[in-house]
């Protein structure tokens, strides 16, 4: 098993320390939880939907391509981004996320725990199981398929700046679990479990027009493998920077 910790690992560690510190501060405050008067919709903000409530969003996520892999083609690659969350209890909720470009898709299923730390500061922990799959059958070009599994544990801090604006910072560890690719009748498989990379997300959630709320954010993934570029079969054992911009309507 290869571990690529470096600065990303340090950030992850710092994220956990910050989370623990926040919880400790919350303990010191020792006040019973009262739901905020203005309950604002949010997908990233670490606050569980009310038990039984569904939260959903649809939007786009754009990923910048690293030149080592896509060479002279530098694009913001768009993907449809759908989120669905379901409250289980005051603190626990389920999350589902689908990102798709039709020929390749990524489905994440996760469970999250979120708790208020102060009136404005919230914190959460969660883990997503991720499955991705891509298939390309183009005459004289591709006869390839690939798929894989990842696990993404994450820690989240949310700050309700005012009644209308929620800031969220999330730190993720991207763990590779399994990879398989086929080219014609040939197949390769990697089932090594390793830290593939880390990601940091900064999201704003707020009303946009009338009662419509939106999510706007940046995700900075720093990883060895990115599922969206499986068909380029990059072989680098080096971490690349994948900045992502996302914008979604909370339905």
């Amino acid at each position, binding site marked *: 098993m290869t571990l690529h910790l470096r*600065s990303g690992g340090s950030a992850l560690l710092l994220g956990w320390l910050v989370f623990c510190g926040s919880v400790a501060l919350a303990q010191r405050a020792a006040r019973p939880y009262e739901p905020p008067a203005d309950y604002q919709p949010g997908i990233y903000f670490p606050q569980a939907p009310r038990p039984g409530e569904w939260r959903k969003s649809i939007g786009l996520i754009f990923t910048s391509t690293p030149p080592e892999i896509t060479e002279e083609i530098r694009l913001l690659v768009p993907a449809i981004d759908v989120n669905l969350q379901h409250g289980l209890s005051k603190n626990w909720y389920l999350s589902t996320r689908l990102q798709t470009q039709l020929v390749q898709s990524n489905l994440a299923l996760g469970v999250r725990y979120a708790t208020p730390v102060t009136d404005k500061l919230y914190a959460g922990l969660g883990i997503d199981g991720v499955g991705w799959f891509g298939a390309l059958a183009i005459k004289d070009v591709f006869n390839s398929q690939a798929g894989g599994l990842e696990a993404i544990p994450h820690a989240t801090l949310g700050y309700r700046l005012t009644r209308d604006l929620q800031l969220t*910072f999330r730190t993720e560890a991207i763990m590779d679990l399994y990879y398989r690719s086929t080219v014609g009748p040939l197949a390769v498989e990697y089932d090594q479990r390793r830290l593939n990379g880390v990601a940091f997300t900064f999201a704003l959630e707020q009303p946009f027009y009338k009662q419509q709320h939106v999510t706007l954010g940046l995700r900075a993934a720093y990883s060895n493998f990115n599922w969206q570029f499986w068909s380029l079969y990059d072989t680098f*054992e080096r971490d690349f*920077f994948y900045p992502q911009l996302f914008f979604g309507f909370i339905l």
Partner: protein
Amino acid sequence: MKPFYYLLVGGLSWLLLQACREQYEAPIPYEFSGQTGSGRFTAPVRQTMEGVYTVTDGVGEFGAQVALKWTYVLNGADTTHYLSIFSGNEAGFFNLENDRSVDSLVVRGYWRKLVNTDTGLARLALRTRRNGQLQRFTGTLAVGDTLVLEGLYGTGTASPDQPLTLTYNRPLNPRPFAILAHRSGGRTSDLLSVSENSLNMIRLASRLGATGIEIDIKFTKDGVPILYHDNLLNLRLIQKNGLEGPVEEYTYQQLNTLVRLVNGEKIPTLEEALETVLTSTTLNFVWLDTKYDGPMDKVQAIQQRFRQRAIASRRDLRIVIGLPTTQAADAYRALANKENTPVLSELDTAITRSLDARIWAPRWTLGPQLEQVRAMQAEGRTVFVWTLDEPKFIEQFIQESNFDGILSNYSPLVAYYHYVDQ
């Protein structure tokens, strides 16, 4: 609480910036003397040494076995010899030269892994094992003797301190197979010491295991064929200089004076590249990839001239024009005279047949295509596959497909899997 938040935001921002700013480099920790000849490594010794070796010390770093092969570059009538060791582990390879500072059969140089930035120094002595005892190799092997390369390797620029022992196991796989290096030897993004599509990369190619190269041809504004891959002047290929846009918008003189490839080389002309192949290397195949639109006659004229020179100097050298698109195929069809103009078709089998291309080269992402490959070979055509870098697929394509060669950015890895194949 506020200082806590400021600390949090500041700390995380700093870490994010650190992560974004990481630049990968893999500088070669060894400077080659470049002296001609091979010292005590005479031709019989070099020939005896080539083979598949079992790794005893150093398995974790370089795998259970490696392939050893000597190559040389020419400088006029002089030759400079290098020992290459190809590892199946993370596209690793060694480049070594005769150590002239000692009075024995010793090589020194560096190792590198292409998939990452790992590199280091190495120094190995050639010995024989006789009756379990290591002895100095005198140049001839007695019955029962086994060749052993024994020495040390290190990491980075540190002095070698880790044991490395290679024991001769068997000869290299003798089956003819084309190990074709992409972009004249390897991609710039693989952090080699020289730039892709440069003269220095052409000189390096055989030390990376290549028996042939693919080079990318474009034209300058004033009609000079040059080696350059991208449509635009891109920072992944050239040093920053403020010049942007299509390479075809600049004259040769402007490019030659103002533009340098990422490792400082000038953009070579096609003629300079073929001159280097012909006079400085032992490469036996050059694939001129058509990256331009328009007539092909200038490239054809250069191809024919260098083919004639190769024949005149009794060089085993095939120079073929690659046809990657229907437009390139049309440009080939439009040539007034197609005599002595071998071409390689990347298009489907029907077009390849209609062009009477002697070489067919499909994409590797279509798989082994055993039936089509056998059919084309039955018609006397050679079949290559491109551009295959994924290590496990390279292994499978060599073991389970029927191609005559592989074009790859990882020629050391193709060399390894080909030479150890039994």
